[in-house]
């Protein structure tokens, strides 16, 4: 398509005049680079430069509002010898893995349930996406109240069905606090999985199901050998997306638990924030934030390559 069009355009154009400015500006490469220069410079200044500067900061002892001194890898060594850092690492991986599995399984269930004809389907779909649309901080405040130590509506319900008073301390117990942030992250992210997978399901040609049924496949076999293989690329992309942003999550934990109790829900992003903004140690904070980098590089590279191939 594009090859043919270039031939056409080329044939219609007079022979190239190297001396003319408008002819030079009309060249695809010149036009493209001139057009892309402003956004690329913007991104270089506010993403590229801060990123490199962050690496430099991580090699400095840099209290806030003071000039930094170069200390080599001391901040990374401090991470290595900091038991909280290792707890944060474990927390982040547990949080990401558990929330991802829940979102994937729940999202698939949601997509399968929604992939049927029923009245008001579009309205239901719009309502189901609400948790994903509403600003995270605001819905997390609602969850904080649902899990409130004294007036939790969840505990009111649990007590009503026979759980002994006063009910679980959702945000005060280290394990339950981790369960809480995982569940709330799932609540927010599941619709994204569900609606995206639903769009994928709708592209599966019905003939495939008919053929499988004629061949005697059961419902489970149709799901396992028709639906799942066809959905696999979408599941992979959605999962990579969601893993990246769950791994680097900040808002939910900052609002709900501030990383507590006793760092039980502290993640890389909230810990880096506490050290850099709370304790004012920018260098050490940058080193904590950069600890996310190896895992993120792998994920981002995988997804970038995958998106490009598709």
């Amino acid at each position, binding site marked *: 398509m594009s090859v043919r069009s270039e031939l056409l355009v080329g044939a219609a154009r007079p022979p190239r005049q190297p001396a003319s400015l408008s002819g030079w500006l009309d060249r695809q490469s010149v036009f493209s680079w001139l057009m892309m220069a402003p956004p690329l410079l913007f991104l270089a200044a506010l993403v590229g430069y801060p990123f490199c500067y*962050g690496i430099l900061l991580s090699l400095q002892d840099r209290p806030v509002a003071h000039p930094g001194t170069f200390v080599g890898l001391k901040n990374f060594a401090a991470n290595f010898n900091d038991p909280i850092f290792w707890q944060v690492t474990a927390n982040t991986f547990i949080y990401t893995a558990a929330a991802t599995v829940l979102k994937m399984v729940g999202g698939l269930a949601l997509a399968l349930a929604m992939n049927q004809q029923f009245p008001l389907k579009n309205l239901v779909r719009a309502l189901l996406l609400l948790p994903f649309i509403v600003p995270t901080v605001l819905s997390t405040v*609602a969850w904080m109240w649902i899990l409130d130590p004294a007036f939790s509506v969840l505990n009111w319900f649990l007590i009503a069905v026979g759980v002994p008073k006063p009910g679980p301390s959702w945000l005060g117990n280290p394990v339950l606090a981790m369960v809480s942030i995982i569940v709330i992250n799932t609540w927010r992210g599941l619709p994204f999985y*569900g609606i995206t997978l639903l769009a994928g399901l709708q592209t599966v040609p019905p003939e495939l199901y008919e053929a499988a049924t004629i061949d005697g496949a059961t419902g489970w076999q149709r799901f396992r050998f028709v639906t799942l293989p066809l959905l696999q690329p979408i599941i992979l992309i959605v999962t990579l997306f969601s893993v990246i942003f769950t791994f680097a999550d900040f808002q939910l934990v900052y609002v709900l638990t501030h990383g507590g109790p006793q760092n039980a829900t502290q993640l890389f992003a909230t810990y880096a924030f506490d050290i850099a903004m709370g304790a004012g140690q920018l260098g050490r904070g940058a080193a904590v934030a950069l600890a996310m980098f190896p895992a993120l590089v792998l994920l*981002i590279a995988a997804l970038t390559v995958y*998106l490009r191939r598709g």
Partner: protein
Amino acid sequence: MVTGHGPVERVVRLWLPVGFFLLVALFPFYWMAVTSLKPNAELYNKNVMPLVLHHPTLKHYIDLLTQTSFLVWTWNTMLVAIVSTAISLVLGVMLAYPLARMRFAGAGLIAMTVAAIYLVPQPLLFIPLADVINRLGLGNTLGAVILTYPTMLVPFCAWLLLGYFKTVPMELEEAARIDGAGRLQTMRRIFLPLCTPGFISAGIFAFTLSQNEFLYALIFLTKSSVRTVPVGVIAELIRGDVFYWGQLMAGALLGSIPVAIIYSFFVEHYVAGLTSGSVKG
């Protein structure tokens, strides 16, 4: 696929799961609304059945609007979201158009770089960015977030528009070129007017992302007069250990409404944008 069986099977396979997902998805919003309308005496009384309203009152809304800077935060949030969305759409087009239509050395590399930048989460950059913003003298101005939100929105808009642009047929542009139109003219007069649905998708996404942003706003905006809704609600309605739950819920609900309204108008565009990245790949 479900083939029309009896009503019992339809309840089990359709209404039970869909009803469950709806209940879980919507309960927190119901709870926000109910809480925000309860008087304090009812809110903090454990002997009252909490799920329904007994004595509805608008007191928390009135307090929120008269005793806090909520309206200022709402204005700030809107202003920031609209300006950074506009900037991001313009810069996004400038990236996406050449990548979608032109052939030049390095196009593949640029496309991959844009995708990779889109995936860089803010927590990786916020510490050095805080220093950059301070050195620019932008601390506690809306300029700080108007400048930094596009760092995540530009790659995002470019990526979404790139996908959309590739679906637009090239014939009209070719005809314009044959008629002697320059490249810029062809893009502005012929191509961009064809892409309105793509702009709506990208614009709504960018707008919701701006409204949702918290980390940069939290760090850069520490004065009440420049705060956005999420930061204002967290920083000023929770004072020490005291939670003003009625006002918090009223603020959370009011803060969610603009996004919800815009989303409800353009839900089809939103879903198209959401799924285009992955489904069309």
